[in-house]
């Protein structure tokens, strides 16, 4: 299939972004990740104005939707490049942009360090031996699958990079720790959760359907709220 690709390029964090349009022959079963690899491996590719394309910078690691590295805006929606098939492109058009809620490093690469900072600042760790229960096991498994990709933050109406509300990328991992806490040992996390998550979330659940890992985000939110706010610990 012949694709018209509209990419937002940016040389480095200080440069002004610009649009580049490329026409490229690709296979419908290819993913956006494969397409980017093919573009980068082609010799002397030119855009529709005859300008050289060069290497398009983007991030990937696992290429099988297990690491979250390749999250970007694909046709306007945050998604994983390795999980998006070109056959989903309408009328042979594809638009690629970096996630907008994070500072652009170059081309499609953004700096998501903020998400690590946020998890540190809510003390997202266990200070005790994990309490295991059947209910906690199911929740922990699902929550532990979070890729830290940032797609949920991209669509969240309440998350701002410089704000103090941390969104699903924080409450999903937090729900795993909360589920394993003992009732008599609530840890700092429960208080910080109320401050940086519970208080700021509008419960619109835009984050629920976007999660490329298919995590039941809504369930994580209600469980985490029940534990951190209403003190309904999984341990008796």
């Amino acid at each position, binding site marked *: 299939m012949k694709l018209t690709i509209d990419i937002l390029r940016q040389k480095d*964090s200080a440069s002004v972004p610009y649009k580049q349009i490329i026409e490229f022959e690709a296979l419908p*079963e*290819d*993913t956006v*990740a*494969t397409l980017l*690899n093919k573009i*980068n*491996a082609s*010799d002397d590719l030119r855009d529709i104005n005859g300008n050289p394309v060069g*290497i398009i910078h983007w*991030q*990937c*690691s*696992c*290429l*099988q939707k*297990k*690491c*979250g*590295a390749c999250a970007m805006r694909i046709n306007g929606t945050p998604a994983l490049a*390795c999980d998006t098939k070109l056959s989903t492109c309408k009328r042979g058009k594809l638009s690629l942009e970096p996630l907008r809620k994070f500072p652009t*490093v170059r081309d499609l*690469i953004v*700096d*998501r*360090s903020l998400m*690590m900072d946020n*998890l*540190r600042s809510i*003390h*997202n*760790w*266990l*200070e005790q*031996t*994990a309490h*295991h229960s059947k209910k*906690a*096991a*199911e929740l*922990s*498994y699902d929550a*532990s*699958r*979070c*890729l*830290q990709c940032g797609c949920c933050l991209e669509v969240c109406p309440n998350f701002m990079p410089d704000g103090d509300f941390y969104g699903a990328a924080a409450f999903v*991992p937090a729900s*795993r*720790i909360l589920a*394993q806490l003992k009732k008599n040992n609530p840890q700092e996390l429960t208080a910080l959760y109320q401050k940086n998550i519970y208080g700021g979330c509008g419960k619109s659940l835009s984050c629920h359907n976007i999660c490329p890992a298919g995590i039941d985000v809504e369930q994580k939110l209600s469980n985490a709220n029940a534990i951190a706010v209403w003190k309904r610990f999984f341990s008796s």
Partner: protein
Amino acid sequence: MRINIIGAGLAGLSAAITLAENGVKSNLISSMQSERAQSVMAEGGINACLNTMGEDDAVENHIEDTIRGGVNLADKSAVQGLCENAPEIVKNFYNLGVPFQTNENGIVQRNFGGQKKKRTAFVKSSTGKMLMTALIDAARRYEAEGIIKRYPHHVLQALHIQDNKCQGVTVTDTHTGDSISFFGSVILASGGMNGLFDGLTTGTTQNTADVTAMCLENGVELANLEFIQYHPTTIAIPGKRLLISEAARGEGGRLFVNRNGKPWYFMEEKYPELKNLMPRDVVSAEIVEVTSMPECENQVYLDMTGIDKKVWKTRLSDLREQVIHYLALDPMKKPIPVSPGIHYFMGGVWVDSEHHTSAENLYAAGECACQYHGANRLGGNSLLGAVYGGKIAALTAMKENGKQEVPAELKRVQSYSEVTPLFRNSVSQILGNHLKILRNEDDLNKALDELDLMQNKAANPAEIRLLGLAKATVNCALFRKESRGAHRRTDYPETNPDCQKQTIVKNTKVFFREINQL
């Protein structure tokens, strides 16, 4: 002085946490944050003799299976430490919150290749991700305290080695392009050499092999590069090989090929004891053999249709989703076509049982190091090896920390260079074509000739290094004139007791060394 750790997968995290528990500070440097390391992709499980399945398992069995699986090429004293510590390691993960499946005796274990007892602890087919989440959370506490300092978008630019002593590293911030230098000891935990076989492995593109190549360039010894594990059950998906975890066979999946129009369960017929769960080197070689027989089709299938519904639900639901997603086939209902693909590197940076490399103040652990697995790694042993190895490397480095001489300044280094996709692709094609499951001298010499032709295309230091490592790998394969484990030579089909040694490569020299001897 902070100890510098290169790589933040299981091995790097294990090292950083071990140091932190002992009050020793570290710089944890990785090309991407831990959530993107290959360790998160591990599926089937982690081995430890927990004896919870009523099979009378003992640590000795784990040691024996590991040594036999590695065809007598692993360091027995190191393997002993690994297996003896395994139960504690798995229990520690449980305490950190890993939701292992449990029964009334404790953590449930599944069958895995090359092991006679159920010894593999697991969380569905997402074991690596679960272990990583637990360690990432555990490390975070020390990060907040400033004991572990993360550099999560930083690549190794230079290893400073003078007179065989490591003095520190220079790293590049890939976001800004800035270089930072750190004095002190270095623990390498940079993963396997996927970058030699771009697009042909089941692993991550992040493990570019550049750190290993830098070691070779600096005269640090590498070992056993010829031992490359082909996993018998993978499928080609865009840009890579997708692993179908050994858990599929551990839970009852069967391999067959159509012979004269009828399914032939060749593994079950040829190996009545372990059947489909023979070590991976054996299964992959059998697949090559049966698919080249005139009476057989050129395709092997994995038949999981006989697996119990409950097992699918509780243990393989994620594996099933993956197959349906990528193959549009439901493995519960239909056999799936599979073929061998590159999965693990038994060879790498040479280390002794305390994880010293051949250079002072330089240590290595995890898949980048050559330890524990001999000529073939057993499934479930590499997660274990990464965690245990990271810990031992940290303990050794800690013991020797502060004793090293500190130079006034580190030598100036070349700016960071990257291998271009085109160049990597060419090298990978050459290696992929000639370093197959079955090899011979002619083929390997062809590989060397073709790599020689690449020499004048290498445009920067990273490309020159990669080419050096590629040649070293082929030279190791040429040097070992026998067949053993994952190294199968059609011109030397027998295992030769005189070759029960490690292949060492130092600069461009290749030689044998007795196992467990320097």
